[in-house]
């Protein structure tokens, strides 16, 4: 008996040992919340008109995926989000690098960045609708602008933080000027850049959904909004669940990519909450 309780206590303290068991343990709170959700509705603690149960949401989601509705709209939104993210990141890195290495670029872009940092990019959406109409362009441009700033700032910060002795060593070993940027500054600031991209990843979904809810013909934001307006709440929750899962998966994927590409970096190996 005593041996068993000691074993139990140790197990509780350090958690299960196998990987899949540990994953299950880690996600158990979510299962508990979902169960609570189902029970709260089943026992009529909350009006079904306000909160469809988890089961109803899942069946609505299933139906939407069978008729391709969820697939199509998700794809449209993901396309817009990632197109904007990719372009915004590439341009952002370029501008950040320019600002960190050239005084004139810094003097030109610096004030622009500092000023537009505080502008909610979603406020430009009505303007973009006026200029580009309702469609992909508005979404992609909005996302691009939203992703630009965090990437610029984090790239700039990353390059600025490269220890001078690293650059000095590279030059002492004969690195020509045009290679310093590409082979030394960029790898050195990769962690910073990726941190900015991760923030931009969060933004790209927010902006895409925002645009689609404000005015769009397609997209998961539009779907959620439409079902909400028409009172089909199970479907609305279904769409919501879908995008939450997608966003989570994208974040995890980026984290995994980061952990691989930056496996040489000292500071990346720290336990984190919220990813």
């Amino acid at each position, binding site marked *: 008996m005593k041996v068993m309780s000691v074993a139990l206590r140790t197990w509780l303290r350090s958690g299960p040992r196998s990987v899949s068991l540990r994953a299950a343990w*880690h*996600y*158990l*709170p*979510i299962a508990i*919340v979902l169960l609570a959700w189902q029970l709260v509705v089943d026992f009529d603690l909350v009006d079904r008109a*306000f909160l469809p149960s988890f089961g109803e949401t899942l069946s609505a989601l299933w139906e939407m995926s069978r008729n391709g509705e969820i697939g199509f709209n998700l794809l449209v939104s993901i396309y817009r989000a990632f197109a904007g993210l990719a372009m915004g990141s590439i341009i952002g890195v370029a501008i950040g690098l320019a*600002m960190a290495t050239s*005084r004139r670029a*810094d*003097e*030109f*872009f*610096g*004030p*622009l960045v*500092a*000023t*537009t*940092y*505080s*502008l*909610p990019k*979603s*406020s430009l*959406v*009505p*303007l973009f*609708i*006026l*200029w580009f109409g309702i469609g992909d362009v508005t979404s992609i441009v909005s996302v691009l602008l939203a992703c630009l700033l965090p990437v610029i700032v984090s790239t*700039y910060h990353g390059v600025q933080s490269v220890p001078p002795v690293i650059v000095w060593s590279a030059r002492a070993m004969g690195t020509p000027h045009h290679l310093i940027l590409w082979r030394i500054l960029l790898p050195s600031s990769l962690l910073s850049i990726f941190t900015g991209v991760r923030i931009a*990843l*969060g933004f790209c*979904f*927010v902006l*895409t*959904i*925002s645009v689609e*809810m*404000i005015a769009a013909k397609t997209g*998961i*934001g539009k779907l*959620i*909004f439409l*079902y*909400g*307006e028409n009172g089909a709440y199970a479907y*609305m*929750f279904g769409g*919501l669940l879908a*995008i*939450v899962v997608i*966003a*989570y998966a994208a*974040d995890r994927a980026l984290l995994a990519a980061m952990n691989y590409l930056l496996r040489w970096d000292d500071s990346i190996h720290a336990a*984190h*909450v*919220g*990813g």
Partner: protein
Amino acid sequence: MVERADAPYGPIGLAWAGLRYCYPLLLVVVAWELVARGGLVRPLFLPTVTAVLEQFWILLVEGEIVGPLTVSLYRAFAGLMLAVVFGVFIGLLMARSKWAKWALDPLVSFAFPAPKIAFVPIFILWFGIDHLSKILLVAFTCIFPMIVVTYHGAVAVSRTVIWSAEAMGTPESKMLYRVIFPATKPHIFSGVRVTVPVALIIAFTAEMIAGGGGVGAALMFAQRFFQTPTVFVYILIMLATGLILDRVLLRLRHWLIPWHDEWA
């Protein structure tokens, strides 16, 4: 970001330095005015700077600026306060209690990357179209970065600091309040600073989507009726609000946490 160590001082010098700093912004404004005046673009798409300024004045006098702005700011701040209070508490709890961390970690992990603006229809359904839904949406969105930032700050408190406090007889009940919370304040503050624009964005965007007063709703209204100068005015209002709040926060920092050494 750029500093000139040898800039001349005195009022003329400062004005000149200020001008030199702002030249890209002035360039943008001048280019804007020239393009708009030159007839390259229809005024529907790009009104002149002067038209926008005129419209700003008109709106201001009519009370169409202060009114909606107050509404939006009220919602943003109420939501932010809720998020800060609860977020900090939860973050500290997660740092000190293993069970709290176990229970909340996956929830925070899922909620953090999720585009919480997608919850607008739900919040409207549950809490109506007026203030409450927007405030709660802001709180819902801002609580997660506050939790994460607080958690990391609390966890980073050097264990020798905690051990010293324990050695000097601090009971567990007081540890959180007298040691960990003060030590985490700089992190909390920088978290708030980063979250303020988020609060504004959510408030504005929720208003754009669902209406119900505030700058966002006013902006959408103007756009629907193709009142482009008004659209520009509200965009600039949002920009100015964000800028001013950031400055205010920086000032506040000196006042609230004078003992901590500066970081960018």
